């Protein structure tokens, strides 16, 4: 019995770490074939910076997917968030913190709206958020009058530093503040999913909604919260996007939601709900950046990158299924 227990835990550990192992393998592969600059600290920082936008948005998406839903409006929400932040800075005279919070709040509002529509109208999340994708994109364009909103560099203050490479005097930070934010948020989300009632209820709904209802879980309320959180994370991703561009661009991040969903799925999230992990999601996002970065440095054209990324998604999920059949 003791022995059995031990092997079981080993398997469990291996299961949780398998996306990390996959990341390692992909990374080493590029170290072998890409120029020697690939494995440098500088390049790793670049990879981390490039992962941040998708990574932050994917934190919220992980929760949505665990609950058995999906959110297609994330790309539009990122764009909306950049536009709202720029508008607040440029036209409302807001400070950087107020502007950032405003962007996130606007994003969270649309997440809330999706959640309410899904639970009240009983329309599947795919459709509601598909509609919301267009609604939010439209709203972003409306706020920007179909144009980018440029912001006075003087008003930006620290807002353009979130994802910039660290200047020499602040190299003690190791990584740009935006990346740190992603890491801290990821830890918080992982804890929320594991140690709070909201988190456990999210798993229960995704695993079996009827059971959750039978057990007195307020299914509707949890779902609304989950989509609101997903919207808020979309808003934070928008903040990062804004920091990078320093303009409010309503046409940015088209199709980003698919990268975000891919990150969750590569990391072991199941579109049927009940499964997924924050660690896996981050690794999924990193794998995609590593491929992109490696291909660029190796001089592969864009179309090759896309084919490889597509193949990786399918292979990752197929492996995941295989692993499931083994353990079940």
């Amino acid at each position, binding site marked *: 019995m003791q022995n059995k227990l031990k092997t079981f835990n080993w398997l469990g550990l291996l299961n949780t770490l398998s996306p990390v192992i996959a990341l390692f393998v992909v990374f080493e592969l590029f170290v072998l074939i890409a120029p020697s600059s690939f494995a440098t600290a500088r390049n790793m920082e670049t990879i981390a910076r490039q992962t941040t936008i998708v990574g932050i948005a994917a934190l919220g998406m992980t929760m949505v997917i665990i609950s058995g839903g999906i959110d297609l409006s994330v790309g539009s929400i990122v764009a909306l968030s950049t536009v709202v932040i720029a508008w607040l800075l440029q036209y409302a005279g807001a400070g950087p913190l107020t502007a950032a919070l405003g962007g996130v709040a606007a994003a969270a509002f649309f997440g809330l709206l999706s959640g309410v529509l899904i639970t009240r109208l009983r329309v599947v999340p795919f459709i509601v958020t598909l509609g919301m994708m267009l609604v939010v994109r439209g709203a972003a364009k409306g706020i920007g009058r179909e144009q980018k909103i440029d912001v006075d560099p003087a008003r930006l203050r620290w807002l353009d530093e979130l994802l910039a490479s660290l200047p020499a005097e602040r190299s003690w930070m190791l990584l740009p503040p935006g990346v740190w934010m992603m890491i801290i948020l990821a830890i918080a989300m992982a804890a929320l999913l594991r140690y709070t*009632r909201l*988190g*456990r209820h999210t798993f229960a709904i995704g695993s079996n909604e*009827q059971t*959750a209802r039978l*057990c*007195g879980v307020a299914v509707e309320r949890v779902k609304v919260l989950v989509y609101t959180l997903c919207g808020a994370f979309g808003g934070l991703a928008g903040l990062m996007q804004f920091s990078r561009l320093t303009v409010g661009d309503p046409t940015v991040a088209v199709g980003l939601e698919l990268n975000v969903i891919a990150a969750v799925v590569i990391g072991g999230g199941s579109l049927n709900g009940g499964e997924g992990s924050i660690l896996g999601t981050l690794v999924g996002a990193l794998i995609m950046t590593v491929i992109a970065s490696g291909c660029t440095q190796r001089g592969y054209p864009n179309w090759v990158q896309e084919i490889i990324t597509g193949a990786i998604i399918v292979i990752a999920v197929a492996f995941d299924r295989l692993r499931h059949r083994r353990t*079940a």
Partner: protein
Amino acid sequence: MAERIETQQPTIRLQMQGVSKRFGATIALEDVSIEVAAGGVLALVGENGAGKSTLMKVCSGAIKPDAGQMWLDGKPFRPNNPLEARRAGVAMIYQELSLTPHMSVQENIMLGMEPSKLGVVLWKQVRQRAIEAIKEFDNPELTPDARVSRLSVGSQQLVEIARALAIGCNVLVLDEPTSSLTQQDVERLFEIIKRLQKQGKAIVYISHFIEEVKRVADRVTVLRDGRVVGSPQDGQAHNDVAAISSDEIVSLMVGRQVEELYPRSERHAGEVVLEIEDLAGPENPKFASLTLRRGEVLGIAGLVGAGRTEFLRCLFGLEQVKKGRIKLGVYTGPASPHRRWMQGAGLLSEDRKEEGLALSLSVADNVTLSRLKGFGPLGLVMPGRQDKATRQWLEALDIRCRGPRQSVLSLSGGNQQKVALARLLQHDVDILLLDEPTRGIDVAAKALVYKLINALATGSPDEGRQPKAVLMVSSYLPELMGVCDRVAVMCRGRLGPTYRIDEVNEHELMLEATGK
């Protein structure tokens, strides 16, 4: 009926001989033999779990028997799957309809055997053959283009029958065909069965309802515990319906000794904890009133589809309450499941796979799901404390698993059921609503459940545990007789009066349940 079947004697269409089937340690069928003649209707009756459905799954090819032989129109018949059986001429009309609701009647009838040329469906022929199949039924609702989802349940059933006829099936198995039909549809179905008889089809009719059997069938075979039981007078297994009384059929169905499987300590009924008056739901229940006291086990008997599950679900807020009054403890009126748990009631679902348990989650998650409070500071849920709480139940209920973190999916049925029960115990509810608490579990697990129910109803004043109130739905009469203090019967959505257990016997309950 025989006069229209050309000149020859009614031939035996389907014959099964010495059919046996085991599932693991349980004997589902043992040496069962039946035969149905052309133009004959054989009724197959028995309690739930007696083996009726297993037997019919054998003849429709869904299950392979361990032993025994079958003949169809005198030729050996060994179907490997339902499709082969259908092609050979045996069709089963299932209780759950197996139609595609979004498609038209004609498409459903010809599904999977559409006449086609080079892959192109020949719609004219589809239509023609569908019309031929349905014209027999003479039902205005049934047109080739009608969408199946728009039809009444009765008409949908006819579409299924039409589908079987369209491929030329001569043996039709109807499994509880009337359980979800209105009285009018039932009459219509009986008409059609008569017509099919005249055409020389052989029909096997599975039912709980004795009065239906008496009307429709000409012979009846009773199954009990997987065996054919003979009639008391002559030991004949295939009884002539005209020659056997309803009472005799019921005796054959239940004739079983109650074992000392059911411990019964001295119980003291305390204050009223649940009062229900004239409760009605969206469809079922139509009418239900009862009172339940602390320290009491109240059983609800009845047949599958009588509305007992819906009754519990209404109580628990999983289905809408249309009418009536519920008073649970000090709380009046309907309430959501969330509230019911807080008010001290818990429901054990009859369907542990679909509803009762989140199968992919761990034992600990399932046991603690209804109340995730008190497992850590600040409302946090610390897995370690969840596990600790769960371990206590693993031991108390003898749940066999590797630990609290194992997923419920890999447990046996009995252990899964214990996990579902442990949730009510962990929540420490005062009123336990148990829907078929022993469905699909082995005898050892059943014994434990009975012991547990007894212990809960008795309480233990020395240890400061108050007696609980248990409301229990079961289709298995011996179980209700063994466990309950009082029992009521639900029949077609109506809950009858409650009897003290020493006032009634199984026979009377069965009669009431079958609508006699």
